[in-house]
């Protein structure tokens, strides 16, 4: 597979020459700075305000530039790249509409703490503020959804700003940083000195935790009778998954991983309870509610996890470990707050903790719940059940793929039935819940991990929000396997309308959707379809044997619901169990 994405690197001599101090344009400074930051892949879309940058990119082959078909595709791809690699994702768009088309993707990355450097063009500095053609105040528009942003007014600031942007994006609590470059700044020339120093007085994330707090946690673990760990995306982002496994093995505390934390802990481990929250498992939700010690590592007590806050974990002493101090106490008051990098905290804790020896009865209880109330659905031989399709994908790929999803029912079924055992294998829009994210993010993930199998699982709704990116899969031979679970409706909306709005199915029928097989073929991507179990396996086999991208449509049962489900505003142990009963 990897051979299909050609490696791009200029010669060592050329790279060395380029790093010499020299008078060059802002655009060339940008490209060389990106090289210095180790960028290998950029997703973008040219336009008037970035023409100097694209001119500098002409014939440039030190990193890939993928021309997407929509700026939203570019930024979601950069996001997928960042989540799959742990590096900073980079995308470029022009001013005005190009920049505003990025807004959804920036907000997506911000909510999920994904490191991005977003480069937008702007009109010339002399025109800023005049409502010039294709002008938008993109730094103003994106202020609430970026970790930081820059409007570059002087080309001499550019090397420092780019260096700072990468540093800010990928340290502390990660997030998107926007650099807005006016056209005349990208054209202006100055002396480029690589390796500019940084001076960020106000930015100094706390990595190492306070030792006294760690001691308090160790003591609490020794005393706990019903301890539970919630692990979130912070564990994956910090590279703390091995330290987490060791922590759990040492303490033998039952663990649940949030939606973004899937893959932070091996799902096959007997102490793993599945996902908590709105579509979490019976075991995880009841364990949280009855716990006397709740250790949150790198998760932010999102409302989809906590349900009704006033009834959340009522008996538990709360421990909150987070690199962002503002998360601690934001939603749930912490009894033992620990500010620090999840990996560092876990590594230090591993030197302090022993087996939670008072929790044996608790571990038995958890085992019992897991056996009595597993995830379940009613299978059928007449229609394809979406849960069955996910299980089949899991079995046939041995749980080894990188899986990206869109948002909705298919996302929750994938979270429930695909068994993740390693970090950076699960890419989904958790915080913002962005439809249209699943497919383009898979393109980015594949660029980051050319040797791994990347499966993008989408609904028929979300697939239509960025389907134009089939073109870049085809043209660049990016071998993503695109799954469409087609139930002909907006499934999660239908589920809510059924359960909460008394079957008033308002505007959810996706009649008029394209023939997905033909749509794929129109872009030059192989398309396959399955409507029953036998075909489903055959078709998937064929997809796996086909080099390059393939779209596989599974026509699934329309009326299927995601269970368990906690309705909004209820405590998380009040669950609709549906088929899990």
């Amino acid at each position, binding site marked *: 597979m990897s051979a299909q994405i050609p490696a791009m690197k200029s010669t060592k001599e050329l790279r060395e020459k380029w790093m010499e101090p020299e008078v060059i344009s802002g655009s060339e400074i940008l490209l060389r700075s990106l090289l210095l930051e180790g960028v290998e892949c950029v997703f973008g879309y040219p336009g008037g305000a970035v023409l100097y940058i694209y001119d500098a990119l002409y014939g440039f082959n030190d990193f890939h530039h993928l021309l997407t078909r929509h700026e939203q595709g570019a930024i979601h791809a950069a996001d997928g790249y960042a989540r799959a690699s742990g590096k900073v994702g980079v995308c470029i768009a022009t001013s005005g509409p190009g920049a505003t088309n990025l807004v959804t993707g920036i907000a997506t990355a911000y909510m999920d703490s994904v490191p991005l450097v977003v480069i937008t063009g702007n009109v010339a500095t002399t025109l800023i503020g005049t409502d010039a053609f294709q002008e938008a105040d993109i730094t103003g528009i994106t*202020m609430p959804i970026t970790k930081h942003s820059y*409007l570059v007014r002087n080309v001499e600031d550019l090397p420092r700003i780019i260096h700072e942007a990468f540093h800010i994006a990928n340290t502390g609590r990660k997030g998107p940083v926007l650099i807005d470059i006016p056209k005349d700044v990208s054209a202006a020339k100055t002396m480029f000195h690589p390796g500019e120093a940084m001076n*960020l*007085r*106000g930015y100094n994330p706390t990595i190492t935790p306070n030792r006294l707090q760690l001691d308090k946690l160790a003591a609490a673990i020794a005393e706990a009778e019903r301890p539970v760990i919630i692990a979130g995306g912070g564990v994956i982002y910090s590279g703390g998954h091995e330290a987490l496994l060791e922590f759990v093995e040492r303490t033998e505390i039952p663990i649940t991983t949030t939606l973004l934390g899937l893959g932070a802990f091996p799902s096959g481990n007997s102490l793993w309870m599945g996902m908590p929250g709105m579509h979490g498992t019976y075991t995880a939700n009841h364990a949280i509610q009855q716990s006397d010690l709740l250790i949150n590592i790198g998760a932010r007590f999102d409302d989809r996890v906590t349900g009704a806050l006033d009834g959340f974990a009522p008996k538990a002493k709360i421990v909150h470990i987070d690199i*962002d*101090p503002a998360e601690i*106490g*934001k939603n749930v008051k912490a009894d033992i707050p620990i500010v620090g990098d999840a990996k560092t905290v876990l590594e230090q804790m591993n030197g302090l903790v022993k087996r939670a020896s008072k929790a044996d009865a608790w571990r038995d209880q958890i085992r019992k719940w897991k056996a009595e109330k597993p995830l379940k659905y009613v299978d059928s031989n007449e229609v394809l059940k979406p849960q069955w399709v996910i299980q089949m994908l899991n079995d046939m790929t041995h749980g080894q793929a990188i899986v990206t999803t869109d948002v909705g029912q298919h996302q929750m079924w994938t979270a429930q039935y695909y068994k993740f055992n390693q970090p950076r294998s699960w890419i989904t829009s958790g915080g913002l819940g962005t439809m249209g994210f699943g497919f383009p993010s898979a393109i980015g993930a594949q660029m980051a991990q050319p040797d791994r199998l990347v499966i993008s699982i989408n609904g028929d709704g979300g697939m239509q929000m960025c389907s134009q990116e089939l073109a870049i899969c085809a043209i660049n031979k990016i071998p993503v396997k695109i799954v469409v679970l087609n139930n002909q409706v907006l499934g999660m909306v239908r589920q809510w309308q059924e359960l909460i709005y008394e079957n008033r199915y308002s505007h959810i029928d996706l009649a008029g959707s394209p023939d997905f097989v033909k749509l794929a073929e129109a872009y030059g991507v192989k398309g396959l379809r399955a409507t029953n179990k036998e075909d489903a396996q055959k078709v998937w086999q064929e997809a796996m044997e086909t080099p390059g991208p393939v779209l596989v449509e599974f026509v699934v049962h329309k009326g299927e619901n995601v269970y368990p489900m906690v309705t909004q505003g209820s405590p998380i142990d009040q669950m609709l169990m549906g088929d899990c009963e």
Partner: protein
Amino acid sequence: MKNFAIAVLVNDQPGVLQRVSGLFGRRGFNIESITVGQSEEAGLSRMVIVTKGDENTLEQIEKQLYKLIDVIKVINLSAKPMVSRELALIKVKAEPPERPEIMGLVETFRAAVVDIGTHSLMVQVVGDTEKIDAMIELLKPYGIRELSRTGVTAMTRGNAS
């Protein structure tokens, strides 16, 4: 709910006021007043924000402010002995017969008349918020034509920082 004064030392960058005020707006924090000006150090500005809330809100405000890259330091002034001042200019209707009476009020408040028009006086008053409020109340019966208040600026006393 209680009033708090917070001093925020920020990089003197374009857009920094927008970042700070935007943060308050979107997180639902209250702004009673906000003032910005130079600080003792070149390149840094000092903002003084008066806000209303409980201790938890105040803690979140401080923490969220620290997330902004351009924020160097956040000081909860209300936690320490402090001096806070506000300035107001009040243009009050004043026909010649009423002027001595108004001047008397101004003198009592150690305020100053800084301009005299044919039918009005402009009063400048400096002090804490309560003093300004009281001055305005007393001038209201004469007819206030224009009023401009600066918002609070504040500093901790002595060696407290």
